[in-house]
């Protein structure tokens, strides 16, 4: 009997555990270790942040779902991995610490035959002084952050209803933050809600971003085929912001936040401040902060993880200039570079480099987005890692039949721009592949016929459809596996 342990119940980890339990539950053991008691459909947090959904609509309890799946669920935090075991244990194991219930604070060694690290990002608010919902800015990265953002936003809306002007600042809160898409959705939804209340004359709405040009979205931008032109996403993004009455600041690395004031440096090395009444700024991301030890209990974290805590996998991590980046640098099996039985899925794997060209100010501050890994690639990666492990357990063959490189797979980004069945809108953007491949597609970097940029009510319906469809799938309801990632 084999034992597979999955760390993290985010999109990638939860997808992996769903496929593992479907294939292995009868004869093998599947364990999920997550400190969270809920699964949350993160893309819909945007709607929680503008009061269009409640946190209950975007989350559900994990315990009953895992009971139904036959998964051994441990609500605990993974502290360290020991892939070689130790003097007492022959097998690799993970040290976990329970976060709730009678066992709270208790540590346990959970052995495994295969380990999937799907721990997702640590929201690194500490990297920017004054950033975060406990300090001076809001976040929509989790459902409770989004709920807090909505409560604060309502205060600004009330002030505007009483005739007071308000400045809104939404975007990235760290010089190397990613997830521009989520912040972009939020700024459009905030503008939509203000416009709906006829309060635009009292609103000064700003988008602040570390992108070199708008529409970069951490993937080096893209080209879309629309209205008889091949258009860069810069034009597409600027057009949407202008339409919604939003001004922008680009090439900005936020350094510090004080009450009502953001301090940032631009790519020319100049320092600026921007006053705000309401700010939602996405933090930088880091790995979960696990340690790794060898058989002699020596710290080997630097061999297993990169500096920010994300796990090294089958990528080419050789430092090289932007001009030499290529599709083959990107991983396709997500197997640990050091241990064959360890995998990292979703945000937990360390990308070989960025997708956006690295930029630096004359003061030496790096100001550019790090690579995003949205729900779609995270789900696909979780699935193929699970499929490969299932294959190896069932056949005993050490081979990877399933591969998914971000330089070969496509993704869709549905950017909500207002809620409502008849007047809601969203921008639908598809890119294929996610990582541009200038050798294979020298003209546009990607397959231009697969790259779409359309705004309309249909996009809103698709986002709403995906919300219900993916929650259905995540709850493992009948035939869930027929729904693609």
């Amino acid at each position, binding site marked *: 009997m084999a034992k597979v342990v999955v760390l993290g119940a985010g999109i990638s980890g939860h997808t992996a555990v769903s496929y593992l339990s479907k294939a292995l539950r009868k004869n093998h053991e599947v364990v999920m270790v997550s400190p969270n008691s809920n699964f949350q459909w993160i893309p819909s947090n945007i709607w929680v942040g503008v009061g269009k959904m409640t946190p209950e609509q975007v989350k559900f309890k994990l315990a009953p779902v895992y009971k139904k799946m036959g998964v051994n669920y441990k609500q605990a935090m993974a502290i360290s991995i020991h892939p070689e075991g130790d003097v007492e244990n022959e097998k690799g194991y993970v040290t976990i610490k329970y976060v709730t219930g009678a066992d709270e604070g208790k540590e346990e060694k959970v052995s495994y035959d295969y380990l999937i690290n799907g721990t997702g990002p640590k929201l690194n608010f500490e990297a920017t002084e004054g950033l975060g919902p406990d300090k001076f800015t809001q976040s929509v990265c989790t459902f409770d952050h989004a709920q807090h953002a909505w409560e604060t936003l309502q205060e600004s809306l009330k002030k505007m209803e009483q005739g007071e002007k308000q400045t809104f600042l939404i975007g990235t809160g760290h010089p190397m933050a990613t997830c521009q898409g989520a912040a972009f959705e939020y700024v459009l939804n905030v503008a939509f809600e203000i*416009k709906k209340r*006829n309060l*635009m*004359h009292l609103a000064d709405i700003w988008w602040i971003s570390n992108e070199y040009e708008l529409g970069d979205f951490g993937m080096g931008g893209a080209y879309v085929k629309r209205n008889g032109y091949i258009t860069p996403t810069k*034009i597409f993004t*600027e*057009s949407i*912001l*202008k*339409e919604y*009455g939003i*001004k*922008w600041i*680009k090439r900005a690395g936020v350094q510090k936040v004080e009450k009502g004031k953001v301090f940032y440096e631009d790519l020319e090395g100049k320092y600026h401040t921007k006053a705000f009444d309401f700010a939602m700024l996405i933090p930088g991301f880091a790995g979960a902060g696990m340690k790794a030890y060898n058989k002699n209990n020596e710290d080997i974290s630097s061999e297993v993880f990169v500096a920010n805590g994300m796990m090294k996998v089958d990528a080419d991590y050789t430092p090289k200039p932007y001009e030499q980046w290529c599709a083959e640098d990107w991983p396709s099996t997500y197997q640990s570079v050091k241990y064959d039985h360890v995998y990292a899925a979703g945000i937990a794997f360390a990308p070989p480099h960025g997708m956006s060209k690295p930029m630096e100010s004359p003061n030496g501050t790096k100001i550019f987005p790090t690579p995003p890994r949205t729900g*779609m690639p995270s789900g*696909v990666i979780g*699935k*193929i890692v699970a499929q490969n492990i299932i294959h190896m357990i069932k056949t005993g063959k050490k081979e990877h*039949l*399933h*591969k*998914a490189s971000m330089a*070969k*797979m*496509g*993704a*869709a980004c549905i950017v909500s721009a207002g809620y409502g069945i*008849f*007047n809601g*809108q969203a921008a*639908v953007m*598809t890119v*294929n*592949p996610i990582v541009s491949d200038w050798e294979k597609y020298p003209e546009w970097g990607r397959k231009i016929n*697969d790259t*779409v940029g*359309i*705004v*309309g*009510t*249909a*996009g809103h*319906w*698709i986002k709403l*459809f995906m919300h219900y469809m993916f929650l259905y799938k995540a709850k493992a309801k009948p035939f869930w596996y027929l729904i*693609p*990632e």
Partner: protein
Amino acid sequence: MDTQKNKTIPYSNTSYGTEPTKMVRFFRRFFILQIYYFFKLNFKIMRIVAGGHS
């Protein structure tokens, strides 16, 4: 006076942004066209996702 409209400030970065015409805005919410786009885009997304991994 339409208080929802922003005054264009020449030479500001927003002044260089393209903007949709009334007709484009109408078609973005035109039910029949949007139903067509709903199925077309869903199909396209499914195809891209399915083709991206082996």
